[in-house]
């Protein structure tokens, strides 16, 4: 059995545990590759039946339009229920302040909308596409992660998660976040997308785009939501997006990768250059940094 088969089997098992243990689960769909992979896994877990949960999208209003189009097409193709709730409405209803600055991000405000939608539909479990390799705190989170009334994660009070036995028993007001692809890495997800021939939104692939050059050197796609001034440098570049979030805080990378194969090569190349750098007496050389920029790795 190939390692992708094992990861897939684990994810399907987790999704079915959600279906078996909860009354009102939901799948949080961002339009990113991880949540797209989740929908494929859900098809494998529940077809020929319907998904035992709706897709829920928290729309920041700053999304890439390609993503919104993809989302609607996907939901229609799957024949599954899609619930969309807008951050804009939350801002109005709760009297929140719009984020300011040159690159106003509504990312932090998504939490409010999420908590509201959980309350509105009384969701007891929310499935998400987060992975443990993404960052250090995530490396410690459980696959079934219990949240309190306020959606908070308390790392001190995590339940031990033994074997592949997932304990989703909760008290009133609590809910559980479930991460079926916790044990996948970024490369695993891309390899899976390639194997399963999953179509992705265009913005994951190389395309010409007008971008703003940030002080850090990163490129931000030009959009009406940015508050630019004369000092900003606008350039036309061949770019792709490595992750897909709010357009005001998701940087593009320069890349000619036009297919999934190319993207996987990009990821692998970044490793080769790493190898080159680390082989020099275990000291880092300047070329490491050069290669990094050349390969468009962040």
């Amino acid at each position, binding site marked *: *059995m*190939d*390692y992708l088969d*094992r990861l897939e*089997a*684990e994810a*399907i*098992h987790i999704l*079915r*545990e959600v*279906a*078996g243990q909860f009354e009102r689960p939901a799948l949080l769909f961002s339009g990113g590759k991880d949540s797209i992979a989740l929908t494929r896994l859900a*098809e*494998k*877990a*529940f*077809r*020929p*039946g319907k998904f035992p949960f709706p897709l829920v999208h928290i729309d920041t209003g700053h999304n890439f339009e390609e993503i919104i189009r993809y989302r609607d097409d996907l939901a229609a193709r799957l024949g599954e229920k899609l619930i969309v709730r807008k951050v804009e409405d939350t801002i109005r209803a709760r009297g929140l302040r719009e984020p300011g600055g040159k690159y106003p991000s509504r990312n932090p405000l998504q939490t409010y909308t999420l908590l509201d939608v959980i309350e509105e539909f009384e969701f007891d479990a929310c499935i998400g596409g987060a992975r*443990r*390799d993404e960052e*250090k*705190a995530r*490396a*410690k989170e459980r696959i079934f992660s*219990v949240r309190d009334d306020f959606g908070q994660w308390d790392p*001190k009070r*995590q*339940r*031990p*998660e*033994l*074997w*592949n*036995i997932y*304990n989703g*028993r*909760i*008290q009133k007001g*609590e809910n559980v976040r479930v991460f079926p692809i*916790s*044990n996948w*890495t970024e*490369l*695993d997800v891309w390899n899976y997308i390639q194997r399963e021939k999953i179509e992705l939104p265009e913005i994951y692939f190389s395309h010409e785009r007008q971008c703003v050059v940030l002080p850090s050197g990163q490129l931000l796609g030009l959009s009406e939501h940015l508050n630019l001034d004369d000092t900003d440098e606008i350039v036309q570049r061949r770019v792709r997006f490595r992750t897909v979030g709010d357009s005001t805080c998701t940087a593009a990378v320069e890349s000619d990768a036009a297919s999934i194969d190319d993207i996987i090569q990009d990821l692998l190349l*970044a*490793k080769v*250059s*790493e*190898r080159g*750098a*680390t082989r020099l007496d*275990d000291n*880092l050389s300047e070329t*490491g*940094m050069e*290669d*990094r920029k050349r390969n468009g*790795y*962040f």
Partner: protein
Amino acid sequence: MDILRFITCGSVDDGKSTLIGRLLYDSDSVSLDVLATLEKKRTATNSTDVDLALLTDGLKAEREQGITIDVAHKYFTTPRRKFIITDAPGHVQYTRNMVTGASNADLAIVLVDARQGVIEQTRRHTLLASLLGIRHFVLAVNKLDLVGYDEAVFQKIVADYQAIAGQLKLAHVQAIPLSALHGDNIVRRSKHITWYAGPSLLEHLESVPVATDANPHEPRFQVQYVIRPQTEELPDYRGYAGRIQSGTYRAGDKVRIWPSGLETVLEAIEVNQQAVPTAEAPLGVVLRLRDDIDISRGDTIVPIAAHPAVVRELEATLCWMDERPLRAGRKLLVQHHAAVVKAAVTTILQKTNIETFESVGTDEAKLNDIVRVRLKTASPLVADEYRQNRDTGAFILVDEQTGATLAAGLIAATDPEYFTQEVAAEPAFSI
């Protein structure tokens, strides 16, 4: 390519973080931006080497903030294998984290500081890992550079550890002399340790057979979810979705449903809506049966030749994980994968002294205690002994009110004939 899950155990001072850091670093598993950060820190502190322990500094931050040290997961891949590292802290107060980490591991790396040799912790970690059914052990004798790469030091530690391995009847132990700080025998063979001809740590991790490759167990499948589309095209479709826990299933086989005991025929096995003739663990499948029988989540479907124990009383080894001690008579829930039944702990038979491995009488189980208990369940449980089947022999105990996970449970005996007669008559674990 397959997956090896391993756990690293050793106290903070044994150089565990450095070992993991070195493994990731020398196998080119650290991304460039992380390397750049390390380099920046190296320059800032004016040191000659990057601090590899920073690669696992999630733990460091935890300590600084004083929050409970917890299990962390790290991932890396070589051309041979994908590796999942469970980094479990080893202090005695974190026994439950160690047990949690070991529950999913195929291999345990037990780290020993060459200057200190085998200590209490070494014994404790090895006991817990072996209790949880880990079959492959690596005795990693670290910091050999600090004892002048002396072979005698290494051999003394190996001899001491062999005593433990013998006592616990460990099947496979590979002892490796190394220095995580300098990278000796981590990924590359050491230039300094000329007297050792064995594999480097990574070479060993890449070649050790993964337990799940062999699948000698009886077939077991538990229903997780019933698929019933009830559409115009599929008005009567009924599929039992679940995971093959062990063994192989064949379409056309006669099967029995437990605990009801009803018999029918396995009409089809479906994977991703395609019928397949056979399927084996750990694949997720949909089983379709010839007869319309009342089957629900938690029921077990096995070929009629297979004979799981179907019991309402059993003995189990528990690792108690709750602050509030367990006393006989306590009612709680047994979660045996998809099956959840009410149960009571009728007797606490004995407790394992995790330093001496001896069994002693006790009437309660405190946090982190390893005890053998007798359990009664309100409805039948389809069970196997843990030493026979690491999947169906495992369960957790859950507090009915709070939902908290109270204990890890390993089924020790399902047949009253083998129940523990007297306190302290035999070890509390049986591997």
